[in-house]
């Protein structure tokens, strides 16, 4: 530890800390442009000048490491003169077009110039003209004249993301930020440079000229498009959400977002957004719909009691809304059939759930089934940051039916067959701790063969399972047996930490569970089977879209056909609209206050920045109206919150699961192409006009170049997929990274109804090839 004095205050910090960070700890603000803690020191802008005693000249606080006994002054005439000079230089070629600049009012160049800068520049020559409002991509604009050449954007893409799409070109005053060979930046993390840019050089195209910082509602919110639950600032203007920015949380996250979350906010104003009630497929006045629904509810409750009603919670609802539905269902209707909409069968008990802190502290991470780049993008960035920390090496392995390795994140993957992940993990566990009673119980039915997998790889995995002090497993929930292996693994590794991060949705499923719903897949299946068998007369979907999501489409169809009344609340009309007796428009995220629980089991608060459009109403409006129709009192408990005093913003800890269920070795297919499903944020069925082109490009099945060759598809084509359950026509494209013998289909896309088939071996046939110009 090193002691130093900054502005008369003493502080003790770790060796190697920069003066800027030490000052920040004391709450002393040093102006910076180029420095960002996540990117490390560079010393390009010279804005952070401070005076260090015994140093002949002013020093940059962001590149000068602390030293014992150092005395630093962050104010004083010398420092002021230095900063004034730097700002005068920065402004020499600056266009000073604040009135037309979107950053005006929240710009560090403005702020620092007001605080430290010269009132007038002495430079009389004409300013250098560069590109204004040029494209970095279809989503990001650059104004090269405003750039202060801090290089944050370039370094972020290059070093942090590992996709070097931006660069500096030219020399001296002619230097500009541009893209590699003028090609548009494609990275899904490129949007972060908008937040990183301290001035108005990099701008969000959808927000261009839309608003000013003083005429907006900018609220703390949470992205709900994937289970990472990134913290955001959501900007509303004139009743529409116009911008989403990352929101850093001290000591927890840097405020990165992926472009799906940053620009995909417009689903709430999409033309397909439901804004009117629908009765038997026709738009109807809200009052009339409420009357009808009340009538049906009365009838069912009176004749058969509440148990003939089941409620499926899904969509992008808050935990509070789920709790309101829970109370309505139990107290007013009197049913306990309360389940969560699921698209994959896996489940992670709370006792196993880890946090991002566990990830930062982990010495080994195993990705099971999931590629975070596609399913939870910001988690990919976290993994990369963890991997780049050379002080503490990280072992990164994968067990999945396809190779998970990427140039930005190399993963030693054990490529399994579809449905073999649990068995392979069990085999490694057998080798690592075969005699542990929990493992023995797990393997009692003969699992753990790992047929066809290289034994040295299995041994390597078993070594990780045995030796890792802090192990984190990231799992996509596609193969349900993995849950039991993970439970046994956690038991066998008593004394070492074993934590799991689930990447499956709905993004707030843990919050629904907190509110009282059963989030297990089996519970949902039971409800659907009961509905098919006529034991349920009314099915209420709260935000859920089962035809799109549930893995067995046939069962959902049968259930829909059999139930007498089918109701839905949601932001969009669910698939199979013809089945629904009534659909009522609900409020979307950004329109209600509430909490969301992310994949860490962490509660995060979101405040609304707009009102629900049209006739859309928050959950409680419907519940109170329906309860009124039933003649029962129902008062929404506004006081209820999902927090627990002891566990803070995490949901309460639970003990490790004790009962270990034995798993069976899977029947493995011989040859053929295997159908494989995966959740992908760019193809999750939530529409966006801003991202339309990118979403369309992602909503396609993928095959490996080898299989494509065999089928005679060069880039894009249409294939016919056949299995025991049926036939499906799918558009496909060639994916260089995909393991041969696999057909990858994103989950939850209406146009790719992969839930007509089951994962496993399928017959594939080419229908046509589509030429792309």
């Amino acid at each position, binding site marked *: 530890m090193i002691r130093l004095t900054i502005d008369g205050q003493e502080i003790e910090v770790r060796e190697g800390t920069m003066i800027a960070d030490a000052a920040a700890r004391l709450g002393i603000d040093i102006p910076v442009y180029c420095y960002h803690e996540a990117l490390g020191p560079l010393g390009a802008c010279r804005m952070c000048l401070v005076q260090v005693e015994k140093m002949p000249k002013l020093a940059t606080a962001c590149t000068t490491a602390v030293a014992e006994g150092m005395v630093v002054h962050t104010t004083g005439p010398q420092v002021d003169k230095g900063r004034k000079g730097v700002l005068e230089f920065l402004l020499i070629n600056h266009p000073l077009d604040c*009135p*037309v600049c979107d950053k005006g009012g929240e710009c560090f160049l403005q702020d620092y110039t007001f605080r430290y800068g010269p009132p007038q520049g002495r430079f009389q020559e004409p300013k250098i003209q560069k590109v204004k409002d040029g494209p970095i991509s279809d989503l990001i604009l650059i104004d090269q004249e405003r750039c202060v050449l801090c290089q944050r954007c370039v370094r972020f893409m290059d070093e942090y993301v590992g996709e070097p799409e931006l660069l500096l070109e030219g020399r001296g005053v002619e230097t500009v930020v541009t893209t590699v060979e003028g090609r548009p930046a494609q990275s899904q993390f490129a949007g972060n440079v908008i937040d990183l840019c301290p001035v108005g050089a990099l701008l969000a195209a959808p927000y*261009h*000229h839309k*608003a*000013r910082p*003083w*005429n907006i509602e900018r609220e703390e919110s949470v992205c709900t498009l994937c289970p990472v639950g990134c913290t955001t600032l959501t900007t509303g203007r*004139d009743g529409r959400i116009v911008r989403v920015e990352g929101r850093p949380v001290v000591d927890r996250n840097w405020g990165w977002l992926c472009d799906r979350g940053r620009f995909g906010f417009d689903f709430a104003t999409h033309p397909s957004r439901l804004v009117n009630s629908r009765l038997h497929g026709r738009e109807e006045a809200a009052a009339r719909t409420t009357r009808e629904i009340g009538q049906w509810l009365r009838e069912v409750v009176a004749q058969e009691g509440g148990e003939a009603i089941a409620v499926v919670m899904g969509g992008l609802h808050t935990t509070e809304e789920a709790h309101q539905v829970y109370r309505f269902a139990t107290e007013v209707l009197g049913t306990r059939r309360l389940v969560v909409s699921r698209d994959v069968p896996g489940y992670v008990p709370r006792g196993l759930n880890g946090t991002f802190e566990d990830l930062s502290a982990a010495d080994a991470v195993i990705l099971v089934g999931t590629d975070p780049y596609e399913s939870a993008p910001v988690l990919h960035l976290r993994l990369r940051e963890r991997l780049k920390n050379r002080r503490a090496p990280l072992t990164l392995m994968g067990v999945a039916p396809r190779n998970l390795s990427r140039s930005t994140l190399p993963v030693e993957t054990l490529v399994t067959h579809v449905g073999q992940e649990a068995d392979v993990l069990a085999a490694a566990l057998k080798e690592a701790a075969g005699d542990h009673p929990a493992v023995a119980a797990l393997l009692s039915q003969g699992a753990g063969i790992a047929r066809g997998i290289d034994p040295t790889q299995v041994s390597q995995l078993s070594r990780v399972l045995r030796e890792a002090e802090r192990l984190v497993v990231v799992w996509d929930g596609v193969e349900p047996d993995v849950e039991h292996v993970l439970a046994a693994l956690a038991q066998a590794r008593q004394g070492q930490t074993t934590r799991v991060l689930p990447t499956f949705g709905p993004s707030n499923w843990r919050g629904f569970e907190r509110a009282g719903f059963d989030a297990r897949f089996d519970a949902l299946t039971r409800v659907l089977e009961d509905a098919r068998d006529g034991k349920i007369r009314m099915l209420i979907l709260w935000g859920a879209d089962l035809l799109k999501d549930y893995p067995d489409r046939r069962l959902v169809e049968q259930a829909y056909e059999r139930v007498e009344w089918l109701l839905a609340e949601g932001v969009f009309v669910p698939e199979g609209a013809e089945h629904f007796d009534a659909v009522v428009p609900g409020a979307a995220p950004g329109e209600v206050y509430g909490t969301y629980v992310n994949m860490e089991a962490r509660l995060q608060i979101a405040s609304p920045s707009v009102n629900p459009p049209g006739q859309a109403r928050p959950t409680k409006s419907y519940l109170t109206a329906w309860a009124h129709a039933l003649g029962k009192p129902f008062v929404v408990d506004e006081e209820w919150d999902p927090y627990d005093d002891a566990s803070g913003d995490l949901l309460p800890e639970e003990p490790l699961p004790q009962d270990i269920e034995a798993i069976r070795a899977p029947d493995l297919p011989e040859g053929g192409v295997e159908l494989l499903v995966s959740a992908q944020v760019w193809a999750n069925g939530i529409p966006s006009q801003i991202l339309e082109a990118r979403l369309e490009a992602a909503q396609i099945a993928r095959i490996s170049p080898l299989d494509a060759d065999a089928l005679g598809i060069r880039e894009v084509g249409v294939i016919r997929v056949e299995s025991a359950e049926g036939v499906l026509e799918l558009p496909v494209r060639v994916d260089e990274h995909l393991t041969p013998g696999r057909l990858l289909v994103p989950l939850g896309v209406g146009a790719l109804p992969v839930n007509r088939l089951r994962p496993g071996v399928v017959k594939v046939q080419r229908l046509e090839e589509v030429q792309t110009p």
Partner: protein
Amino acid sequence: MLDEAKAILKGLGTTFKALAAPRDTYPYPEKRREYSPRYRGKHMLAKDEEGHELCVGCGLCEAVCPAHAIRVVAAEAPGDQPVSWTNRYSVDYEVDLIRCIFCGMCEEACPTNAVRLTPFNELAAYDRQSMIADKQELLHPAIRK
């Protein structure tokens, strides 16, 4: 008797004096008063010599207005028909003349000298709605005769 006649004559005297004295009232609207050149009346949005709108829709007038009388909606200026001298302009600009207190702060805040308070002060209407001056109205200001 004499006292009363004196009082009447005195009264009439005042009347006749006033008849000959210079007038304080104006025969408005046939004749109008000259105002100070700094008089602040209804707003206008100015254009430059080429007819381009000066307003860039920065919203500073909206922000500074103590009466919340101004509403600005900015947008990218249409490229094909140059209405603005730069790439940003206001698609919508409204002043609520009932709310306005004619303080002139908007005029002072405007970086492009686009919004100006003219001497025009004949502000009357039969309903509140028509007291909201929209952009077209402000671009074609009425002249005070």
